[in-house]
C-alpha cells in the first residue's frame, strides 16, 4: 500500500456546459495547469473550494507540487497573498501581528502579521506546534483576528491554503480534528502521470513555471462565483441523497464518528459550486460524488484508525453503498 493514496477521483464528471462561469473556470484551469502539469481535476477542485469560500488543505509528500499549486492559484486569481512558512518555533504573534511601541508617536501601534492578506499560504502547517496552529483557528472560521483584546477584520475575500506533509512523517504535529474540520477540502495531488512527467522533464525548470501563470480571475469574479453558487438549485431528491450519505457515516459501526453538520453543509456548498462551475443551475448527485472525496475524507476516521488515513476506504463505502436513488 502506498503511503499516500490519491483522492478517489471521479475524473469523468458531469458534462461541462457552456456558460460564463464554466468559461472562466476553463481559462483558470488552463492557466494554472501551466504550472502544475496533468492535474486538471485537482486544480478544478481547488478552484471549487476557493469559489465556495472555503479553506484548502493540500496534503502530499514533499516535492509533489503543493506549493506550486498554491502559488499558481494565487496568481491566477490575482489575490494579494502572503506565505507563512510554518516551523516548529513559529509563534502565534508571528502569524497574527504584534503591537510595537512607536517612539515617535509615543504609542503602541499594531503591526499586522502575514495573516492580513486575501490569500494566506500556510506552508507545511503541521510542522508547527498546536499552539501556533490554533492561532489560525479563529482567523479561518470567524475571518477576524483578536490581538491584545482588539478584534480586527481580515480582508475580503480571505482564503487559507495550507499544505502539509503526511502526518506519519518525522517532525509533524498532526492537525486536530477541530482544525481539520475547518478546511472545506483536503486535496491530494499524487504523482503526475507519465505524459505530464515527461513534459515536466522536457521543460527542465523548477519554480519558474509559476511565473508563466497569468491572472485570469478577479476578486469580483470570485465573489460572483460565491453569490451565484448559493442560487444553484438543490432539489429535495438531492438533499435526500446528501442526508442518506450523512446518516450512513453516523449509523455504521465502522465510522468512529459521523459527519458534523458543518461537514454536511460543506458537501452541499461544494456540490453547488461544482454544478455552477460546470455551467448548470442545478446540482446532480454526480456533483456531490465528485467533491465528496475532497470534502469528507479528512473528516472521517475509521474505528481502528491510528494515523487518520482510513478516510479513503470509508469514502469508497459511502460512494458504493449509499443509494443515489431511493
Amino acid at each position, binding site marked *: 500500500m502506498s503511503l499516500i493514496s490519491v483522492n478517489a477521483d471521479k475524473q469523468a464528471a458531469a458534462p461541462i456546459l457552456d456558460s460564463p462561469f464554466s468559461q472562466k473556470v476553463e481559462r483558470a484551469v488552463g492557466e494554472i495547469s501551466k504550472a502544475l502539469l496533468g492535474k486538471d481535476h485537482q486544480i478544478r477542485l481547488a478552484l471549487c473550494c476557493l469559489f465556495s469560500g472555503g479553506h484548502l488543505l493540500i496534503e502530499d509528500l514533499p516535492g509533489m507540487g503543493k506549493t506550486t499549486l498554491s502559488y499558481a492559484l494565487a496568481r491566477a486569481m490575482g489575490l494579494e497573498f502572503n506565505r507563512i512558512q510554518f516551523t516548529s518555533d513559529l509563534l502565534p504573534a508571528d502569524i497574527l501581528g504584534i503591537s510595537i511601541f512607536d517612539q515617535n508617536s509615543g504609542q503602541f501601534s499594531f503591526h499586522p502579521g502575514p495573516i492580513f492578506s486575501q490569500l494566506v499560504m500556510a506552508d507545511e502547517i503541521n510542522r508547527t506546534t498546536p499552539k501556533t496552529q490554533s492561532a489560525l483557528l479563529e482567523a479561518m472560521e470567524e475571518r477576524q483576528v483578536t490581538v491584545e483584546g482588539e478584534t480586527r477584520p481580515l480582508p475580503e475575500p480571505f482564503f487559507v491554503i495550507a499544505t502539509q506533509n503526511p502526518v506519519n512523517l518525522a517532525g509533524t504535529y498532526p492537525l486536530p480534528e477541530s482544525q481539520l474540520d475547518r478546511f472545506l477540502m483536503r486535496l491530494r495531488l499524487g504523482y503526475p502521470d507519465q505524459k505530464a512527467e515527461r513534459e515536466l522533464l522536457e521543460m527542465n525548470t523548477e519554480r519558474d513555471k509559476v511565473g508563466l501563470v497569468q491572472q485570469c480571475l478577479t476578486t469580483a469574479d470570485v465573489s460572483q462565483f460565491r453569490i451565484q453558487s448559493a442560487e444553484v438549485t438543490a432539489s429535495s431528491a438531492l438533499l435526500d441523497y446528501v442526508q442518506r450519505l450523512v446518516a450512513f457515516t453516523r449509523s455504521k459501526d465502522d465510522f468512529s464518528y459521523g459527519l458534523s453538520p458543518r461537514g454536511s453543509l460543506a458537501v452541499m456548498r461544494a456540490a453547488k459550486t461544482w454544478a455552477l462551475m460546470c455551467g448548470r443551475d442545478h446540482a*446532480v448527485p454526480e456533483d456531490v460524488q465528485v467533491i465528496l472525496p475532497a470534502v469528507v475524507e479528512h473528516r472521517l476516521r475509521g474505528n481502528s484508525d491510528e494515523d487518520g488515513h482510513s478516510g479513503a476506504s470509508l469514502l469508497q463505502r*459511502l460512494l458504493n453503498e*449509499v443509494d443515489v*436513488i431511493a
Partner: protein
Amino acid sequence: MEVAYQIPRASLQWILLSVFLVIAPQSIYMPIWITLIAFSCLLWRYLIFSGRLNYPSRLMRVVIVTFTLLVSIAQMRSLGVGLESASSLLTLGFVFKLVEMREKRDIYVVMSLSFVMCMVAFLYSQSLLISLYVAACIVVIIATLIALNRSSLQADARSTGRMALRMALQALPLTIVLFLVFPRIAPLWAVPVQATGGTTGVTDEMTPGDLASLGRSSELAFRVQFENGPPPLHQDLYWRGLVLENFDGSTWMRRRYRSAYGTAAERGNFQFNWENRVLVQGEPLQYNVILEPTQQPWVYGLHLADPLNRNLFQSRNFEIYNNGLISKRFSYDLRSYANNQTDLVLLDSARARNTEIPQRGNERSIEFARELRGSVNTDRDFVYAVLAHFRDNPFYYTLNPELLRDNRIDDFLFNTREGFCEHFASTFAFLMRAAGVPTRVVVGYHGAEYNPYEDYMMVYQNNAHAWNEVWLEGEGWVRFDPTGAVSPERIELGVEAALQDDLAFMEQSLFAAVSGRFSFFNTLRLRLDALEYEWNRRVVSYDEEVQVELFERLFGEITEQKVLLLLVGLASLVMVAVGLSVVNIGPRRKLDPVTQLYQTLASELSRIGLARKTGEGPLDYRDRVVAARPELAELMHDFTALYVAINYKPPVQDEQLARKQVKVLKQRLNNLRAALSPLRGSRAQS
C-alpha cells in the same frame, strides 16, 4: 464465579402475566387451596424478582417435591385417577417450576408448560368464551417469548404485544387449514373426565319425596334446531328420555337389561324390527340436537324418534341410547313422527311389568283407585277421572314440597298434596297400575326457550320433567301428563311461569329471573347463546364424520392420493403465503412514480447485464449504459435528461406540467423498453 443470568425485567412481567392467565381458568375446577398455592407462588416469584425473597433452598425444594407427591397421591385417592387430580398435579409442578426458574432454559420450560396448561383448559370446557380466552393466552405467551429474546432497549411492551399479535394472526390461516384437514385420529389414551358435578340431566331412578328440590338449575341441557318446518307447540315439546317401569314402593327404576350400557354388545341386544310395533302417519320432523355432556348414555328426543346417527340406537321402549357415555358435547340428528301409535298389541310380559305394584303398602290409594275404576266404564275414562281428581282437589305445584313418609303414595294423595312432576307422575302411575291399567313413568324434559337469532331452541335443566304413558286398548301407549292437570301453566308456559310467586325458586335462578323481566338482558342472553350455539355446531362438533362429509362434498369420493395431494397442496399454499408475508414484513416505503419509473428502467437494463450500481448517479449510469450499448444512446439521453430535470432541476410549479412530464417520462421508458427487447433476445443467443 459464574455470572448469574438475569431474567430481563420486561420479560418477567410477561411471564407472570401469562402464568396468571393460564392458571386462572383452571382455578375454577381445582380445589381452592391449590389455587391459593398457585397464586402465592406467583407472588413469591415477584418478590424474588424485587429482591425481597430468595430462591427456594435445597431443603425447601425437597419439601416442596415431597409435598406435591403426597398431594397428588391424596388427590388420586379422593378423586380417583382423572382430569382433576392430574391437572392439579400439573398446576403444582408448573408454579413450583416458576418459583425456581433461574436460567433461560427454565423460562422456556415454563413457557412450554403454559401451552400445555392452555390445552388442559380445553379439557374442561370448549365454549366460545374459553376458546377466545385461550387464544388471548397464547398471544400473551408468544409475547413473552418475544420479550425474552429482545434486548432491554427494544423491550417496549406495546411493540412486543403488537408483534405477538401479528405473529398469531399470521399463524391463523395455517391453524384453520390444519383444523379442517388434520386427520382426526382417535386418541391412544383417554383422560377419564370427571366434571365436578358428576352426572347431569335426568337420572334413571326417580324417588318422589326424597329430594326436596329439583329443576332449579338454569344450566343448559341441550339445544335443538328444527330443520324442516316450524317447531311444534310448546305444550307438545316432550323431550323423551327414559322409561321407568319398575316400582318398589318408593323408587321408580329403569328396566335393567342384562348387559351393561354403553357397550357395543348392547347394540345387538337392542336390534329389532321396530316397524312391526309402530304405526306412523305424516311427514317426520327432522332436527338436530346438541347435547351438553351428561356422563350418561341416553339422549333425548321427541316421541317417536328415529335416530339418524350411526352410534345411536333405540331400545324396546323407544328410548335412544348412545354407544358410550356422553362425556363431551354431542351433536345428533333425529327424525320424529308426531303422529304415532306404538305397541298396539301388548305382550303379556310387558303388561305384567307395567301393572306391577308392591304387595304391601299404600293400601288406601289402592282402594281409592279400585273404587274409582269401578265407577267408570273404560280405561280412558278412568284416566280422566284420576286427572280430574288432581285438578278438582287442592293439589299444589311446588318445587319445595314436604318430605313424604312411609306410605308415600298415601301420604301424598291424602295428606301433603303438594309436589312437582315426579310426585304427580308417580302417584298417577301407581293409581293406574292399582286398577290394572298398564302405565309407566317417562322422564325427560318438557318445554324449551326459543332463540330467534339463530332459530333454535334451548332446553335447560329446570325443564326436567316426568310424565306417564298409559296403554289403552286399540290406541297403544298414550301420553298423559298429570302435572298439567294441577298446574296448566307449567305445561303451557314453562316452569318459570308456574313458579313466578315462588320466592325460593326465583332467588336461585336470579339471572334467569332478571333476564326474564328485562328485555335488554334477555336479548343479550339469547344473542350470546346464539353465538355459543354456532360455535358448538360449527367448530366443537367438527369431528371425523363431518370432516369426511365436507371433503366428499368438495372433492368427491375420497382416495388416498387425493387426501395426500390436498394436504401437500394446502400446506405449501400456506407456507408460500406465510413466506411472502415474511418477505414483506420490513418497512416498505412508497416510491414516488418518477423513481418507480427509473427503477423499472434499471431492472430492465439489468436483464441485459447493465444493472445500476447502488452508488451510481443517473448521469454516470447513462454514460456507462451508452458506452456498453451505443445503440441506446439517444433514448438513454432523452430519458435521463428528463429524469434529471424532474428530480434535480427547480421544481415545476404548474402541476399539470409536472404530470405531463411524468407522462412523457413513461413514454420514453416505453420507447427504451421497446428498444431493449430485441437486445435481450440477441444476448440470449450469444
